[in-house]
Every structure is written in structure tokens, then in C-alpha cells.
């Protein structure tokens, strides 16, 4: 593949693979905690770190990491105070972060690479070998912490008050999660950019929770979706000449809309099928019960009735007795019941 012949594209694809895996693994917890925009805010704060890095001629990835982690800890301390001013304090921190970044970058001496767009929206060609090494370390740390503490992070994100009542270290766990978000923001800044990183944390999770039944499945599915859209988006941006961050996010949102639409179609047709069968059985002259001739089949917590090979689960509705279809029935019908059938 031509795309893999270039060193910068190899590094970009590696980075997008790691971003796609890590961002949703952290993002699911943010969605559960209803703090979807935390990544966005820490992205703002990281910009000041980038500016400091540019001004002091150190690697901006390192200074961005320091700024984002400090911001994360500060945010959790403000939230733990639990006053109404917490919301305003967060806004001040977030906008202070981006304003500080813009102003500091403008002070950089001429000739310095101060392309603001590259940090805000991602620029894959800027991913250096050193960046890839840092990203790999961040990826391993974040995934390791999620694997180790995932159940606790879920507990705190799901019901903070309960977690506090039973003695889980709520503040510490919240700080761990915020720090993971900060690390993910920095990991993502080359590929997706600081303004769009939140989308890659949230949208794959939003898709996964449409179809998953458990939290664990949601995490795995979100990570898989993240990797696919991230790598596919980076590849597409190379051929189309579009910015990688925007391409990845648009791809993720397209997937979200597609799955939402598919589920809506499925639900509608299921309802229609249900109604159609209900019409058929409206012509059904009797209620299932003892001696109706249909074989009763225990099914979980209720009794279905075998109706020519498929199961009927009777339930009361406003319009009278109604039967849900509970699938085909594999049990052979005993001949004695067969004989009693009208």
C-alpha cells in the first residue's frame, strides 16, 4: 500500500490506532458520569501547555500533558467542594486555558512553528517518532489503569453517592478518571486535535450503547468502533487531502446516525409484525388456558402456549387479552395433547 511507504503516515496510522482504542475506553465512563464535555474542557487547558512548550522550546506534548493533568486535578477539587460556583469555576478554567494558549502562542518568536490550527484540529504529518513513543507509553498506562480499576470507575461514575456511602475512595477515583482523560487528550492532539478529541471519546460510546446490553460489552464495542473510524478516517484524509480530525469525527457521527436509523427501522418493523400477528389472533376465538387444546409450555417466569409450532405468551392489554410471539417451539407435541385438539 502506497500510504504505508511514508514514514509520517506510518506514524500517523500508529497514533490513530492508539487514539481510537484509548479515547472510547475512557469516554464510556464520562458518558456514564454525564460529564461528556470534560474532554473538551481539558483540551482547552492543554492548549496553554502547548503554548508554554512552544515558548520554552520544549516538546509541546510533554508540556500539554502537564497542563492537562493539572487541569484535571483542579477540576475534581473544584467539583468536590460541591458549591454552585463549581460550574462557573470550570468555565473559567476551560476558557482561561484556550485564551492563555492563544495569547502565549502569539508571543512566540518569529520563525517558530506556531500553527494554531495544527493543535486545534490535528495535523497528522507533525507526528514525530518521539511523539509515537510517548503515545505508546500513555496508551499502555491508560489501558492498564482502566483494566485494573474499571469496575471501581464504573461504580463511582454510576452512583457516586452510593460509592461514597460504602466507603470507596470517590475523590481519588474521580481524579484518576480525570487524569486518564487528560492523558487521552494529549495522546489525541496530533491526530484529532484538541477541539475535536471529545468527539472521539463520546461518539463511539454513543454508538455502542445503542446496541450493547452490558457495560463491559459497551466498552469493548466502543473501542472497536473507535479503532475503525480512527484508522479509516486517517486513511481517508490522506487520499482526500482533508484534515484527519474532522474526517474521523464525521465518520464516527455518520456511523452513529446509521445505527440509530437502522434501529428505528428494526423497531418499526417489529411493531408492525406484532400488530399484524395481533390482527391474526384477534380472530382467535378463545383465551389460552387449561383445556383449550394448545399445549402449555413453561417459558421462564410465565407459560406460553404452543400454537402450531410457535409460542404464544398471553398478557393483558387495555384492549383485552393479547398474545406476544415468543419464537418457534422445538419441543415435540405429546400425542395425547394432539388428540385433544379440536
Amino acid at each position, binding site marked *: 500500500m502506497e500510504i504505508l511507504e511514508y514514514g509520517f503516515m506510518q506514524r500517523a496510522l500508529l497514533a490513530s490506532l492508539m487514539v481510537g482504542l484509548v479515547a472510547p475506553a475512557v469516554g464510556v465512563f464520562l*458518558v456514564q458520569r454525564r460529564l461528556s464535555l470534560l474532554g473538551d474542557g481539558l483540551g482547552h487547558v492543554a492548549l496553554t501547555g502547548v503554548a508554554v512548550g512552544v515558548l520554552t522550546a520544549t516538546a509541546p506534548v510533554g508540556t500539554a500533558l502537564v497542563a492537562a493533568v493539572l487541569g484535571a486535578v483542579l477540576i475534581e477539587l473544584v467539583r468536590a467542594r460541591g458549591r454552585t460556583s463549581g460550574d462557573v469555576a470550570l468555565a473559567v478554567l476551560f476558557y482561561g486555558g484556550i485564551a492563555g494558549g492563544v495569547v502565549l502562542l502569539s508571543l512566540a518568536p518569529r520563525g517558530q512553528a506556531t500553527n494554531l490550527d495544527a493543535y486545534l484540529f490535528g495535523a497528522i504529518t507533525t507526528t514525530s517518532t518521539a511523539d509515537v513513543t510517548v503515545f505508546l507509553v500513555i496508551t499502555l498506562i491508560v489501558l492498564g489503569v482502566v483494566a*485494573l480499576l474499571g469496575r471501581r470507575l464504573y*461504580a463511582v461514575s*454510576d452512583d457516586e453517592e*452510593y460509592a*461514597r456511602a460504602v466507603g470507596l475512595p470517590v475523590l481519588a477515583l474521580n481524579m484518576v478518571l480525570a487524569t486518564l482523560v487528560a492523558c487521552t487528550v494529549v495522546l489525541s492532539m496530533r491526530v484529532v486535535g484538541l477541539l475535536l478529541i471529545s468527539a472521539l471519546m463520546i461518539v463511539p460510546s454513543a454508538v455502542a*450503547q445503542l446496541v450493547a446490553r452490558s457495560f463491559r460489552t459497551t466498552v469493548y464495542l466502543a473501542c472497536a468502533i473507535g479503532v475503525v473510524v480512527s484508522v479509516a478516517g486517517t486513511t481517508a484524509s490522506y487520499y482526500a487531502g482533508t484534515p484527519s480530525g474532522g474526517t474521523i469525527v464525521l465518520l464516527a457521527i455518520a456511523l452513529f446516525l446509521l445505527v440509530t436509523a437502522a434501529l428505528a427501522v428494526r423497531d418499526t418493523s417489529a411493531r408492525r409484525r406484532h400488530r399484524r400477528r395481533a390482527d391474526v389472533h384477534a380472530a382467535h376465538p378463545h383465551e389460552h388456558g387449561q383445556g383449550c387444546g394448545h399445549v402449555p409450555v413453561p417459558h421462564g*417466569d410465565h407459560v406460553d402456549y404452543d400454537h402450531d409450532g410457535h409460542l404464544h405468551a398471553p398478557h393483558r392489554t387495555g384492549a383485552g387479552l393479547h398474545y406476544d410471539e415468543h419464537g418457534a417451539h422445538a419441543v415435540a407435541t405429546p400425542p395425547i395433547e394432539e388428540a385433544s385438539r379440536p
Partner: protein
Amino acid sequence: MTGTQGAGPGRGPAIRLRDASIGYGDVSIVAHVDLTVGHGEAVAVLGSNGSGKTTLARGLLGLAAVLDGEVEVLGAPVGRLPGPRGRVGYVPQRHTVSGAVPATVREVVGVGRLARLGLFRRLGPGDRSVVADAVAAVGLSDRMNDPVASLSGGQQRRVLVARALAAEPELLIMDEPTAGVDAASQEALAAVLADVSATGTTLAVVTHETGPLAGVLRRAVVVDHGRISYDGPLAGAEPGTGGHHHSDDPVEPEGRGYRLDQLRVTPDAARARLGGS
């Protein structure tokens, strides 16, 4: 269900409040309250809306601040580490369990086990069987792998009870477990609490109606205006023997003549009734 029997002699009572004031910020909602609950007791904490009964329970859990006096739970002052970590079960007043992200009954109840495991230990086979037992105790074994969002409101409340049971608590604190729950789930809950109580677990149930749980809860503590206005046998509070009561009346400390149904009288209704008589 419960691993540790509560009634260790010399360990003091399960709950002890001495001249305790509990509240939020600088505001005391419960003021200068004395209360002792022994191990294995089953206590109803009663009171009208705004009486402070929930704040009292939250004070025991470290969710409301102890502003004055002493609050000890399972022999340790509330809020001081290590405290009663993992030995207290809590069923919050919450009508649904489902969060933004789907989670199965098994996952939600599994959270209840975490407090027993410290910060890093994973759920082992023993823990998993305790979780399964807790789910079985509330009659939801066949829904173990279903998303909690697919359960009815009453079933979701039973999931919260199972989550508390999974900690194998020595003290179980519940906030309005029967409010808004259908009759079948209320009966199931009463049966579960009877079993839990029989193992020696101390029960403290905040409620405004003891009806469904009257067979389990033996003692009633009535909170009124942030103070305990009655403390005595639940059975002693027979209906139909007292006169009119409204929330400003002192309740007779003997407990005779206290009518449970009067607890449901709102301050407005009480004032209207008083004005009419």
C-alpha cells in the same frame, strides 16, 4: 447471606448517636439526638416529609455532616477511616438504576461487592457466588444478564437491594424502599428483609409507611422537626386510639396512642384539619 454475625459482646451497639446534630454546610437538620440501636435490631425510622429522617440516615452513612455530638456506626465514628468500610449496606431512595450506559443486573449488583475488596482486588469465584445469591434473594436470578433498563421500576429497586446485600452488610440502611413499588415487589422485599434480619443483620429502614414491612420491623423511631419524638415498639403504635395529631404536637413519649397513619399527614393537611376542628 450474611457472613459476620453482628452481636459481638463488648463491641458496643450497631448505631450510637450521642447529642448528635446532623446537617449540610452549617445548617443542622437533625439536632441533639440520642439514639442507640443494638446489633440485630430491625428499626423503622418514621417521620413526615422534611422531618429529618432521611438526613439522620445519611448522617449514619457519612453523606451528611456530623456537626455536633457523636455518631458511631458499628463501633467506629462515622467519616473516620478505616471506619465501617464494606460492613454497611445502603439502598438509596432512587426509582431507577439505569444510567446512561447499559449495564446488566450482574454488573450493578457486582458493584455492591467492591467495598469488601479494597481498591485493587478483583471479584473472585467466591464473590461471584455471593453476587448470584444476592440476586437470587430478591428473586431476579433469571434476569441476571439482562440490562437493568429492561426491568420494571419495582424490579430495579430490588436490584438496588441486591447490590446492598452483595456486601454482606452487618448494618443495612434503606431509604424509602417501598415508595412507588408495586404490591408484589413490596411483598418480595418484606420476605427478603425477614431473611436478612434473621441472619442477625441490623436493619434501619427510613419510610413513611410501615405497612408492607410491619412484620419485619419491630421498633419505631419517629423523627419530627429534627428530633426523635417517639422511640418504642412499632406494634405499640396502634391505629385509632389517639386524637388528632399535627406536626407541631409533641408526641407522647410512651408511644401509646400514636397513630402510624398520621405520619402521612402533610403539614398543610394538618393545619387545615386543625383549623376545622
